[in-house]
């Protein structure tokens, strides 16, 4: 098979910007293809974070002293940056959490649980990660509501007809992933949101995989809630983002109680702080949030704005699609190999199985060749059941991967096949 592909001599992000990518693994240069689990960190961002911790650090939103003010400014500046990344209407719509999972749990507990009545429905899709299933089950159990899932086609695309058919006046929440972590399918978020809104449902979109790979515009999509995982965006662990429409967040009760989220406290009564502080109880991950800001600066370059951000992430998405296409073309040459996910719109994920080699063995053998992939159910057991496989191997592509990584993947897969021949 001959593919017409643009020549890529170097990756979009130089590997040398990411010290961990230069680590030798099992005596081999590392081909890191597990960024969908967690992306590697650019040195520029970790250096900037260290500089902040060593020279500007103090607690935020508390002290009148200089360092506290510097730290607060640095922390709040990142809120403005994330507002631009998501094109939110108001900076108070951006809540920092400890991760994507916490963002979803916050909405499930503070928004869905008080709203849901027995017989109400929460509509998900078969593509969902456990973290976009279990929080809804917990909210449903507490309220007598029901969780249902829209089907997918065999190629990993959402069955929009089924999605539509499962929407009704009892549907109160619709939650779906923007990009499938297991297959790479990109969902038509805007269309789905419009369909859900037509039935009066509130929509949460799981952006764990879309953050670093696609331009996101929450206003254009019309999302009520949108969540991000920062460690998958080349940023630090322990930071997540919850975007929520202002009127929704304002009406919601707090998720956790503590410092920062109050206006006044007595033993008789507590009044809560305004947004976004209402949802940021306790000392936040200050260095993590500042590290996120530095990471965004790395991705988009100095003095970036909405336009240049959109240009950059679109370029990243297009680049990764080219690398994926090349990788798939190389893997397709291997007899007995099946790639899962062949939707019209695919992000940089290649999920595959090899007839004679279990994904777990494949994972070990690839690792010995310096190729890091994920092998398993990808926290998507319902999806694996739907596909009729116990597990797959998943190579996920980031902006620092190149065509050589795909060649290394293909030749390691061939080596694995030979062991089991």
């Amino acid at each position: 098979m001959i593919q017409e592909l643009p020549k890529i001599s170097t990756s979009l992000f130089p590997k040398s910007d990411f010290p961990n990518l230069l680590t030798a693994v099992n005596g081999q240069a590392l081909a890191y293809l597990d960024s969908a689990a967690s992306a590697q960190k650019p040195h520029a961002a970790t250096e900037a974070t260290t500089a902040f911790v060593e020279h500007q650090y103090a607690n935020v939103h508390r002290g009148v002293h200089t360092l506290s003010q510097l730290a607060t400014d640095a922390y709040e500046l990142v809120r403005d940056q994330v507002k631009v990344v998501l094109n939110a209407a108001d900076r108070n719509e951006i809540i920092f959490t400890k991760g994507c999972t916490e963002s979803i749990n916050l909405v499930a507990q503070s928004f869905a649980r008080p709203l849901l009545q027995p017989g109400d429905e929460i509509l998900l899709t078969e593509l969902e990660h456990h973290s976009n299933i279990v929080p809804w089950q917990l909210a449903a159990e507490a309220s007598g509501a029901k969780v249902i899932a829209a089907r997918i086609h065999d190629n990993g695309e959402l069955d929009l007809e089924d999605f539509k058919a499962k929407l009704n006046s009892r549907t109160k929440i619709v939650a779906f992933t923007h990009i499938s972590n297991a297959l790479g399918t990109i969902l038509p978020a805007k269309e789905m949101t419009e369909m859900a809104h037509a039935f009066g449902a509130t929509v949460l979109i799981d952006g764990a995989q879309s953050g670093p790979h696609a331009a996101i515009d929450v206003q254009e999509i019309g999302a009520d809630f949108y969540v991000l995982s920062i460690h998958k965006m080349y940023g630090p662990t322990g930071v997540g983002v919850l975007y929520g429409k202002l009127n929704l967040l304002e009406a919601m009760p707090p998720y956790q109680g503590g410092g920062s989220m109050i206006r006044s406290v007595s033993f008789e009564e507590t009044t809560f702080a305004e947004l976004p502080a209402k949802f940021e109880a306790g000392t936040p991950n200050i260095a993590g949030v500042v590290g996120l800001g530095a990471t965004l600066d790395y991705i988009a370059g100095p003095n970036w704005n909405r336009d240049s951000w959109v240009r950059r992430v679109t370029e990243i998405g297009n680049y990764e699609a080219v690398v994926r296409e090349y990788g798939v073309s190389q893997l397709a040459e291997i007899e007995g190999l099946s790639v899962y996910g062949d939707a019209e719109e695919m992000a940089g994920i290649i999920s595959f199985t090899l007839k004679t080699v279990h994904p777990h063995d494949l994972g070990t053998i690839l690792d010995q060749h310096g190729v890091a992939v994920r092998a398993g159910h990808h926290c998507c057991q319902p999806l694996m059941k739907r596909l009729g496989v116990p597990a797959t191997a998943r190579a996920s592509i980031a902006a620092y991967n190149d065509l050589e990584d795909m060649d290394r993947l293909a030749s390691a897969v061939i080596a694995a096949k030979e062991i089991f021949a």
Partner: protein
Amino acid sequence: MSWDLRDLYQETILDHQKHPRGKGALENATHTATGYNPLCGDKVTIQLAVNDGKIDEIRFDGEGCAICMSSASMMTVSLQGQPVSDAEELFQRIQKFLTANDESAAMEDIDTLGDLAALGGVRRLPVRIKCANLPWHTFKSAIQGEQSAKTE
């Protein structure tokens, strides 16, 4: 192939994976347990027909990686016709062999393990020890009258 892979995927392992022994259902089972590794999805069911303190029949069924499936296959060969007390003693030797921190302690009984010694390659890959151990823990659960086993 690097040294490590040859060590892990020895001929014995590949042979048992391709030609599993003792695979299938056992109709007259007195003990049955299913083991599951939630991390990777490996699943193995062990069935035993125990009479007068002896394992008359042992079968396994399930789905999993080569290490797990061949470990199960080799286990059926080792335990078929054995007194339960000997089987439990072998279970203990396997635990030491796979998981003892001290390398020389782990290797103490290697000459007594026969084909099972081929499982030793997982010692260098901590995440894969559970794969080799799942059938054994499932056997242990079955013999103790429990219905499920986990490697975690």
